[in-house]
């Protein structure tokens, strides 16, 4: 049997209200995998019509979703379906009730590579955040005080597991 090949796109969703602000956005997303799937499907129908929507949603799936860090891994079949999906991602502006913006971070050929990339990235960002806290500049960039933020980080890591 011939192997079916896919492409996995690692996408970060940022809230439009927090783009212009200088501090980190720590509120988790209130969306499920279904909501994201629907939002992308509807945009596909607008841009590529019935043909585009049918061809891409066949092999499309949300493989990983982390509401706290707002990262999604979307899968699509290799070739035209993936190109159509990748070209509609810049146009997705709202999921559920929130208005968001998509940025693709990485395109991988297997789930394993996408998760390897994610792990490296999260470790790097975690280091940066801790360093910011040690210096005085960190105090100004966060709305919460230090013990509150530590509690929050513990809560977030529990969500992942």
């Amino acid at each position, binding site marked *: 049997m011939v192997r079916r090949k896919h492409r996995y796109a690692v996408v970060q969703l940022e809230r*439009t209200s927090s*783009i*212009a602000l200088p501090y980190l956005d720590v509120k988790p997303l209130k969306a499920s995998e279904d909501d994201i799937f629907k939002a992308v499907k509807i945009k596909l129908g607008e*841009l590529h019509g019935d043909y585009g929507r049918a061809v891409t949603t066949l092999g499309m799936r949300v493989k990983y979703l982390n509401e706290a860090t707002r990262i999604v891994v979307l899968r699509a079949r290799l070739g035209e379906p993936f*190109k*159509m999906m*990748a*070209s509609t*991602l*810049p*146009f997705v*502006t709202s999921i559920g009730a929130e208005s968001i*913006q*998509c*940025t*693709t971070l990485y*395109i991988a050929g297997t789930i394993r590579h996408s998760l390897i990339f994610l792990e490296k990235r999260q470790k790097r960002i975690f280091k940066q955040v801790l360093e910011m806290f040690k210096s005085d500049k960190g105090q100004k960039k966060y709305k919460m005080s230090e013990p509150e933020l530590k509690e929050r980080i513990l809560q977030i890591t529990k969500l992942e597991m």
Partner: protein
Amino acid sequence: RPSNLQLDSLHLETAMDTDLGYADLNIPVNQGNVGSLKKIVVRALELGYRTVAINTIIDQENLASKKKLNQGKEGKLSVIPEPTTVKLTEDDYPLLHSKGLKPIILTRLTVIITDNEFLIHYNKSESVKNYDLVAIVPQTSQCLLSLLKSGFRFDILSFKPDLIYDGVKWQRKLYRECVDKFIHFELIYAHMVTDRDDRRKIISLAQNYQTVGKSKKIILSSGAKSPLELRAPNDVANLSFILGMNENQGKDAVKKNCLDVYRAALGRKMGVFRARVERVDMDVSRNGSSESESSDMEEDE
């Protein structure tokens, strides 16, 4: 013709060697609100761009001579304005700073023309020489043809969304003439996200470029008036599927073609150079006593 050397050869070598990375060559300036310009630039640097060009847009209708201004037509310019600059500190670009790179900020002038008479104001003004890039928005194909014949040289050909269906009728010969004169074609994607009619017009223009010219020498830029309209460079390259380009052409449109525009603009500012070719008399003994003259072989790019 005498050559106007504004850059000496050392400066030119370093300028030609700079790697622009991902570039966004169209961030318009709002006349009323200059503070928001810095936010857009900071957001672009955060998303992964290294080069940004700040765009001042002028309409030919607004350029009037001093006589007419004195007669009472107010609200019009008599002089082309100076380029605007943005001051950035190291805190504004942490991504680039961690790699040890600095952002590059260029200045660009866009003129919306109806006929060749804007050249009178253009040749008189002195602030035009301070701009790095020059772009033109032609309203009809006739005015574009007359501009190409006049020997005026510019870098980028842009558009306005209202003018797409009534404006220039593209043909293979016209496209090839522009390509021969080192002119690049620009596609703006900020209007596509918000407005459905504009989306259709821009897609049809891009497909037109593909039929007529095989999508050569196209650059993609944002034209963003607020930080929410910017997109990451990988996303912009993925738009190539809708705009009738290959994947490679899409990636070039954000990176390599912008570098070509910058180099062509440098060549345009330097002016025309001459190279002298002389025949060398070689002795049969080959003792290394041949007389040869070497002249500065710098060509107009």
